[in-house]
């Protein structure tokens, strides 16, 4: 019964969204009353979709296998957490999650957007409702999660064992919040184009949403990367898989948007470009959804391949993106450019940032889509894999990293480049010193790696140096400096922390790729192997039983160079319901570095086990850097919220605070 209520709630939400969209687009000029209606509509949509989602969760938790979705993707032996995550561990459920986050964003605008000009608010909510109508209809008509079975099975088929992990509880919600959050920027862009009004207040409204989505997308991607790292079992953390690229493209475009919105907010320049980026970013999110959901790509993310769904999403994509760009083409002329500045200035640096990020986005986009297009047009199949992306993406990122530390040093409007170079010279020296030190300690072949490392140190140290420079350390007494440091605006801290995080990630990426040690060997119980100074001894093989799997775990003791010993338990699992085998790597963290162990196959007869060992120096910095970047975004976001009152219409007086 509750499932039918949930189904009805989703239908009702779709209907409300459709009505809201139509009313909003026709009567947006009416202001107050239509805006009020749309606000209530947005909140209602959220409540109804939320109720529908809750009924699904309830059915999964109760193992109600008369629900087709639960029967196909859940099992009564699964732990509670995985019963819940099973809801979105499949195509239909993940679409509902997508729609739910979409309406959550709409409701958030309705709730926090009271101080927005009413016509703008109406247009934003109307666009948001239009998106909801489209995607909720897609869910209802092609991938209905509420279908019942007339002859329910006694037991469910189990969730894909690879997905039975805490990662499924975290990665999709974070990623979707990021993806879908950009819909708000998109809606604001559409509203600006229709109303023809765009100013610094608009940018102030859009930037927190961009920041919010970007924070979640960053965390989502990092989480997905770490999940792949520990689950897929060969220690890779980024594969340039089309599905990864699908999430990475909106991130790149979103990062560009974050920076261009800054220029627009501060200097009232780059308006058309910012609107364009807002549309592009969400379009790339949609493209990602299409690529993943259509089954055009096969990957661990593609739960079901159904060509009709693919076609419908493609049509949706064409209408939304095509419509947005048509509108852009018609109306962009009405947005006037403003803000004069010299080429060497903060604005100039941010434009260069945008140019390089946009090029990087294009490189990833072409690499992802070209094989599909070539196959469709000529029938030739080629692969575009990691080596291609490493080369092209690396070639674009390197100059970006070189110029990055200069950016925050440059003044708005017109900057003195020579003085900035002088102020950063010691940072370059320090980065060089750190690189040489690292190289001397680690050794290794001379390759491109030291340059990568140098760039990482340069960016990280440059970010810290910016704080030092602004606080005037070493140029005035220490107390004044500290007072200045803590008196810096939060945005300054956020900028420095985000750039520092990027540098940290780069250092981790270079170090873990270039200096990793690998050992593949067969071990009998009692035998030892050495890798990077760690002595790993295979003690015994144990049989373990999990709630819904059987497992063989190798018990290994690891003697670290400092003399301490730890026990590691890499496993081979068989999931009972599906009979699927998986491996669970054992990962031991030492400082920022990790020892990664995977238990391979057993040798016949003699008790020998194939063991794969990797030592990955500073590998955790990759994700730590991403966490720092997200943290920086959150810091900036808290600062923005204090100023939410700023973009109120001029005719209303702002009460004194």
């Amino acid at each position, binding site marked *: 019964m509750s499932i039918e209520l949930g189904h009805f709630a989703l239908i009702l939400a779709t209907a409300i969204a459709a009505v809201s969209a139509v009313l909003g687009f026709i009567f947006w000029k009416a202001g107050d009353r239509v805006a009020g209606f749309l606000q209530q509509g947005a909140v209602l949509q959220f409540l109804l979709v939320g109720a529908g989602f809750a009924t699904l969760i309830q059915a999964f938790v109760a193992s109600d296998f008369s629900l087709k979705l639960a029967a196909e993707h859940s099992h009564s032996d699964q732990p509670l957490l995985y019963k819940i995550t099973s809801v979105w561990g499949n195509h239909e459920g993940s679409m509902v999650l997508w729609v739910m986050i979409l309406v959550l964003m709409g409701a958030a605008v309705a709730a926090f957007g009271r101080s927005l000009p009413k016509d703008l608010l109406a247009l934003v909510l109307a666009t948001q409702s239009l998106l909801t109508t489209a995607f909720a209809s897609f869910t209802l008509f092609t991938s209905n999660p509420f279908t019942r079975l007339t002859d329910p099975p006694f037991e469910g088929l189990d969730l894909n064992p690879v997905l039975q992990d805490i990662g499924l509880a975290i990665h999709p919600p974070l990623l979707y919040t990021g993806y879908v959050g950009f819909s708000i920027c998109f809606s604001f862009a559409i509203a600006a184009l229709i109303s023809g009004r765009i100013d610094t207040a608009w940018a102030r409204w859009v930037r927190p949403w961009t920041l919010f989505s970007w924070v979640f997308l960053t965390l989502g991607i990092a989480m997905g990367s770490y999940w792949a790292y520990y689950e897929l079992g060969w220690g890779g953390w980024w594969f340039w*898989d089309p599905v990864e690229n699908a999430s990475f493209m909106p991130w790149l475009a979103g990062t560009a948007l974050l920076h261009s919105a800054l220029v627009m907010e501060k200097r009232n320049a780059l308006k058309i470009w910012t609107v364009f980026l807002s549309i592009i970013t969400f379009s790339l999110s949609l493209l990602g959804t299409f690529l993943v959901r259509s089954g055009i790509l096969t990957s661990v993310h593609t739960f079901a391949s159904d060509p009709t769904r693919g076609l419908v999403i493609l049509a949706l994509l064409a209408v939304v993106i095509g419509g947005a760009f048509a509108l852009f083409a018609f109306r962009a002329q009405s947005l006037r450019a403003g803000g*004069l500045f010299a*080429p060497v200035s903060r604005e100039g640096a941010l*434009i260069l940032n945008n140019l390089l990020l946009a090029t990087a986005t*294009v490189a990833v986009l072409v690499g992802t889509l*070209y094989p599909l297009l*070539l196959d469709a047009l000529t029938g*030739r199949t*080629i*692969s575009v894999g990691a080596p291609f992306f490493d080369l092209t993406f690396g070639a674009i990122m390197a100059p970006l990293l070189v110029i990055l530390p200069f950016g925050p040093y440059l003044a708005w409007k017109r900057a003195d480049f020579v003085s900035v170079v002088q102020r950063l010279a010691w940072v370059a020296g320090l980065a060089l010193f750190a690189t040489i030190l690292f190289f001397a300690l680690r050794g290794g072949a001379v390759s491109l790696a030291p340059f990568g490392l140098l760039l990482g140190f340069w960016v990280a140290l440059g970010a810290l140096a910016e704080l030092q420079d602004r606080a005037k350390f070493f140029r005035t007494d220490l107390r004044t400096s500290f007072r200045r440091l803590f008196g810096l605006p939060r945005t300054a801290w956020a900028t420095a922390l985000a750039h520092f995080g990027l540098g940290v990630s780069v250092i981790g990426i270079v170090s873990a790729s270039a200096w990793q040690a690998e050992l593949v060997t067969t071990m009998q119980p009692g035998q030892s192997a050495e890798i990077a100074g760690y002595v790993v001894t295979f003690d015994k093989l144990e049989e373990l039983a999990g709630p819904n799997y059987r497992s063989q775990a190798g018990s290994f003791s690891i003697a670290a160079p400092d003399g301490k010993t730890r026990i590691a338990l890499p496993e081979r699992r068989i999931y009972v319901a599906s009979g699927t085998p998986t491996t669970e790597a054992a990962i031991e963290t030492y400082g920022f570095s990790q020892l990664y162990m995977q238990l391979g196959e057993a040798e016949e007869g003699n008790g020998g086990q194939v063991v794969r060992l990797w030592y990955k120096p500073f590998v955790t910095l990759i994700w730590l850097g991403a966490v720092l970047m997200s943290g920086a975004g959150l810091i900036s976001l808290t600062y923005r919220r204090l100023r939410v009152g700023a973009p109120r219409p001029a005719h209303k007086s702002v009460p004194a605070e």
Partner: protein
Amino acid sequence: MRRLLAVLLLALATLPAFSVNPDEMLADPVLEGRARAISEHLRCLVCQNQSIDDSDAELARDLRVLVRERLTAGDSDEAAVQYIVDRYGEYVLLNPVVAPHTLVLWVTAPVVLLVGGIVVFIGLRRRRVLPKPPAALSAEEAAALEKLSSR
């Protein structure tokens, strides 16, 4: 000896496979290193975007063994890769070749950077141009002004 190897390979092929196994590895570390480097650039044809070096599929194992056979037989890296491409097609290359049909793939990003750079350059130059000083008065205007001011 060769028959023994063949029998051994056949026996191995029937086992469930993981990515690079100790028994596949070549004794010569230089040769093995070359084999690993080549493997990283070859696609496992039945997998989801994995190199044969990473993959645990049967086919990936066969390819790894094949690469090692070619290297042991004295092939250069290029010849070994070509041998695989001849049999499995271009799809096996993770790094696509530069050829007419992949031209768009390789040049799009540089072209975007170039065009974008030119647009930005022109845009910045235009932005820098300050409003021109008003043109000098024409003869009639000067006369008119003269007439007005002398009134």
